[in-house]
C-alpha cells in the first residue's frame, strides 16, 4: 500500500504500459525492439498482479509469487528469443523485420 496513490492510478499506468507494448510490437521495424515491447507487456501484467495483491488481498501472497514466476519466465523467453535472433543475424547480418519476409501468404 502506497499512501496518496490509489489503485486506479497504478492500474492506469499498467494499462498504458500494456498498450505501449502492443503498439510497439505491431509498429517496430527491429526484432530487438519488438522483444523489448513484449517485455513491457509482461511487466505490465507483473505489476498488475503485485498491485492487486497489495491493495485488495493484503493477507495473501499469491499475486506476488505469480509476478516472481513471470519475471523468471520472461528472462528465459528473452534469452531464447535473443539467441534465435543472433543465429538469424549470423546468416543475414540484419535484425530487421523486413528480412523475415521470405515466408508469406
Amino acid at each position: 500500500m502506497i499512501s496518496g496513490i490509489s489503485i486506479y492510478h497504478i492500474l492506469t499506468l499498467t494499462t498504458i504500459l500494456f498498450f505501449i507494448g502492443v503498439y510497439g510490437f505491431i509498429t517496430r521495424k527491429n526484432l530487438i525492439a519488438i522483444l523489448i515491447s513484449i517485455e513491457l507487456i509482461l511487466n505490465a501484467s507483473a505489476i498488475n498482479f503485485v498491485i492487486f495483491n497489495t491493495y485488495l488481498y493484503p493477507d495473501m501472497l499469491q499475486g506476488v509469487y505469480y509476478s516472481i514466476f513471470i519475471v523468471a519466465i520472461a528472462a528465459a523467453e528473452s534469452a531464447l528469443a535473443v539467441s534465435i535472433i543472433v543465429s538469424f543475424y549470423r546468416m543475414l547480418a540484419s535484425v530487421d523485420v523486413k528480412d523475415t519476409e521470405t515466408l508469406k501468404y
Partner: protein
Amino acid sequence: MNLEMFLKMQNELLLVGLLLAVLIGEIITSQKSKVKLINVTIIGFALVTLIGFIYQPTQGSIFGGMFRTNALIQLLKNGLNVGVLIILMQSAGWLKESLVPQKKSAEFFMLMFSSVIGLNFMISSGDFLMFYVALELSTLPVAALASYNAYKRQSAEAGIKLILSATLASGLALFGISFLYGATGALYFDDMANLLQMSNLTILGLVFFFAGLSFKVSLVPFHFWTADVYEGSPINVTSYLSVISKGAAVFIMMFILFNVFKAFTSIWQPMLYGVAIATMFVGNLFALRQQNLKRFLAFSSVAQAGFMLLGILNGGVLGATSVVYFVLVYMFSNLGAFGVVQAISHKTGKENMKDYEGLYRTNPLLSLIMMLGLFSLAGIPPVAGFFGKFFLFTAAAGKGYYILVFIAVVNATISLYYYLKVIRAMFLRVSDNPIPYFKNDIFMKLGLASAAAGILVLGLYSPLFEYVQSISNLIFN
C-alpha cells in the same frame, strides 16, 4: 505426501527420467554410437507410452490442487504420447542422417521431451500459476526446435516468428489472468469458478485470456504465425505443433471455459460462434491456393481447429466427448499425411504439390497412406475423420446451432475440394519426372503403419468412442 501420491504424476516423472537418461547417454556415448542412442531413446519412449497404458494413476489432486489427474486426462496424455512416438519414429531417419553429423541429435529429444512434459502439466493443471508455467514450458522448447536447421534462413525465420507470437500470446493471457485475479483474489480454477461475478473487468479478463490461448490453438484472427512457422520448421516439428500442442491446448481451453467460466457461458458462446466461422472460412479459403504441402496442411489444420470449436460450443458432456475423440482422430490423420510428406521430403527434398504428380505409379503404398490421411481429414465415411466430424456436428446441433452446422458442412465441402486436389495429383496425373521409387527405413515404416492403423481402428472400432463417452463427464470436476 507419500510415494503413492507422487505416482499420480507418473507420466511426467517417467518423461523427466527419460530426459535425464538421454542427457547422460549423450555424454557417455562416443560419436560413432550416437545412431544407437537414437534407437534406444525411441524404444525408451515407447516403453513410457506403454507404461502409461498399463498403469492408470488413481484419480485425485496433489500439491494442494495445483495438479490433478483422472481417467480422461490420462487418456489424453496417452494419446499425446502415442502421437509423439509416431513423430519420433517418422523423424528417426532425418535425425540419423542430418543431425548426427551436426552433433545435435540428443538435444532434439531433450527439447521435444521437455515440451511434452510441459503439455502434460498443462493438461493436468488445476491452478493458473501451474497453467502459465506449463504453457511456457511447452512453447519455448518448440521455438528452439523450429529454428533447428541452423543453416537455413527459413528455419530461423520460423523460430523468430514462433517465439515472438508465443510470447505476445502469453503476455495477453497473463494480462487477462491478472484481471481475473484482481476480481476474485483466487488462482485455483475451483475457487475462481465459485467467486467469478459478471462484470466488465472479468469479461475483459476472459477476452484477453481467450485471445492468448487462441494463439496456441491458431484460431483466426490469431493464426498469422501458423502457416509461416509450419512451412519454415523441420517437418517433424511442424507435425508436433499441428497435432500434439494443438490437441493439448484445445483440451485445456475446453476445460477452462467449461469450468472456470461456467457463469460466462452466454459471453463465450457467441464469441466462439464468430471465431469458429472465421476460422473455418479463412483456413479453408487460404488452403485452396497453396502449392507447398506443409503450408497447405498448415491452413488445413487452422480449419480443423475451427471444427473443434463446434464441440466446445456445446458446453456439455457430449461436446467434451466429441472434442476429445476428434483430437485423437485428427492426430492420427494428420500424422499420416505429415509422415508421407516427411518421407518424401527427406529422400528427395520435394515439398510441392506439383512434385507429387504420378506418385501412385512409383510409390503406391505412400500414396495410399497419404490418401487415407487426407480422406480422414476431409471426413469421408469409412475412415475415422468422418465420425469425428459427425459427432462434432451432432454436439453443435444438439444446442440448436443449426446455421453454424450448415456453415461447417459448407466448409467441409470446400475442404474436400483441396484435399482431392492432392489425391488427383498423386493418382490421376502423369508426370515426365515423377518422384522415383525409394525404400523407407524401418522406423519410418512403423510410424506410417501405426498412423494408418490408428485412422482405420478409430473409425471402425466403436468401443473406443464408447470409452471416451463413458469418462468424459470427468471434464466437470
